[in-house]
Every structure is written in C-alpha cells, then in structure tokens.
C-alpha cells in the first residue's frame, strides 16, 4: 500500500495523520501565532475569483497589523 509520505512528503503526511479534532486545535494555534506576528484578517486579492474587482478598495494595511514592520528587503 502506498504511504502518504511517498506522495506528499513528511510534513503533509504528519498533517494527514492527525485526527480532525487535532487539526482543528493546530489550526487555532496557527491563528494565535499569525495574530501575534501581526497578521491581518483581510483576504489576499484573488484574481481568479469571479468576485474579484480590481477597483475594490482594501481595508488592508501595508504590512498587516502594527505588530509587523519590514526592516529590510530586497529591491524585488
């Protein structure tokens, strides 16, 4: 029988092996980290969505919430 690792690698296989309740808990944990890092609730622009409107103003701040600031970046 094919094992998940052969198809999706160790990291995804470990996620697959969690129970739904464990995945839910892990997801909540990720949310907390995301907010601590200054993550924003604003969704990314989804250009392939039928609802996408390039003229729609976004409530998003440049770098998420004030908790995150870009200190250095490349020119790209």
């Amino acid at each position, binding site marked *: *029988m094919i094992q998940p690792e052969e*198809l*999706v690698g160790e990291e*995804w296989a470990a996620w697959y092996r969690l129970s739904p309740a464990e995945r839910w808990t892990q997801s909540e944990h990720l949310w907390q980290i995301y907010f601590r890092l200054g993550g924003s609730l*604003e*969704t990314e622009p989804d250009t392939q969505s039928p609802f996408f409107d390039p003229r729609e103003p976004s409530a998003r701040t440049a770098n998420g919430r004030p908790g995150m600031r870009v200190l250095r970046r490349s020119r790209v």
Partner: protein
Amino acid sequence: MGGQACVFYGAAEFSRDTDLAILASSENFARLNKTLTDLDAQVIAVPPFEARYLRKGHAVHFRCQHAEARGMRIDVMTKMRGVDSFPKLWTRRTTVSVQDSTIELMSLPDLVQAKKTQRDKDWPMVRRLVEVNYFANRENPTREQIRFWFLELRTPELLMELVLERGGLSPQLFRKRPLLRIAQAKNESLLADALLEEEKRERAADRQYWTPLKKELEMLRHARVSQLKR
C-alpha cells in the same frame, strides 16, 4: 524560508473568511440579518444583500466591524455550481462541537463539489481532501466511501491502488468516470493526463456558469459608481 515566507509575500494564505451556505427562505434571511447586525457586518462590494441575487447564484460579501470580529469577512450564498440544493446539503452535514458552540460543516463530498472551481488554488485542495479521507479509511471503508474515492480521487497512484484493491467496478461507475478504465489498465502517465483534462473541463464549466453572473456584477458595479458620483 518556506511556508511563512510564502504567506508574507502573498502567494500562500490560510482561510480568513467564513463562507455561509444558507437556505433561501424569508425566515432564514431575517435570522441572518439579526446575526449580521449583532456582528455589525456591512456589505462590501456588490451585489447588495437581497434574496433575488442569492437565488441567482451570487454570493454576498460582508465585513464585520464588531470589536470581537473586526475585519472578519463573511460570504453568504444559497447555491453553488454543481452542488445539491441546500436541503440535501443539510441532511448530509457534519456537526462539530467546539467549546460551547455547535458548528455545521458541509459534508466532505459536497465540499469537494463546491471546490471544483476555475481557481488554481482550489484544485490541490480537492486532491488533498480526498487523499486524507482515503488514507484515514482505506483499511475499513464503507461502500459510500469507496464510491466517493472512485469518483473523486485525483491522485493517479491512489486511483490505481484503489482499482487494484477494490476492483469489480460497475458499468455505471465507468460511465460516470471514464478515466477509471485507464486506472484499471495501470497506465499512470495517461491517467495523470486524463485527470488534468477532467480538471480543465470542470474549470471551463465553472467559467461558463459565471459568465452571465459576472456580467451582472459588472453592471451593478457601474450602477453603484454612477450613484456615488451623483
């Protein structure tokens, strides 16, 4: 490096909105309205929150302003392409209890149908949704699960394993999904091509479904802009 960096640069995200599928009844709209008021949710973009748009297949988009949910996006819809009507979805739903709340989730087969869209990002999701279910249940599956895998697995290796382990496919299954014959013939590369073709057909069907709805959205946007200019 990796996942977090992809999130930072905007190529990867995890879901930050809540999609609500509801029954299009006046009672339900009243209940939803009350909840949206509690959340101080305001409609963003078009269409407006009216039953006639939801019944046509549009989604209505809200952003919450309540202190405990500030910025949270909610999308409300009553029908989705290729997905059964709400009463059928409701009978098949999954109910989960989280702390003191009960959450009703769309069943896995219904979610897989709903995810067959024109967007690139939905297709790896469809594949993983079925893979997880297959790996978790393949040792002791129900008949319904086996049928679901035959119809929805998108991983060539697993489809071939399934056909080998659970052969004896009915003609009806072959009719519904002709590429099962290729899985039976164990031709992995041809099977991968056929799966890609299957995906392309679904994406084209989704684009076609949305063409008139997108036109209507564009007209609503123009009308809104004209109204704002007045």
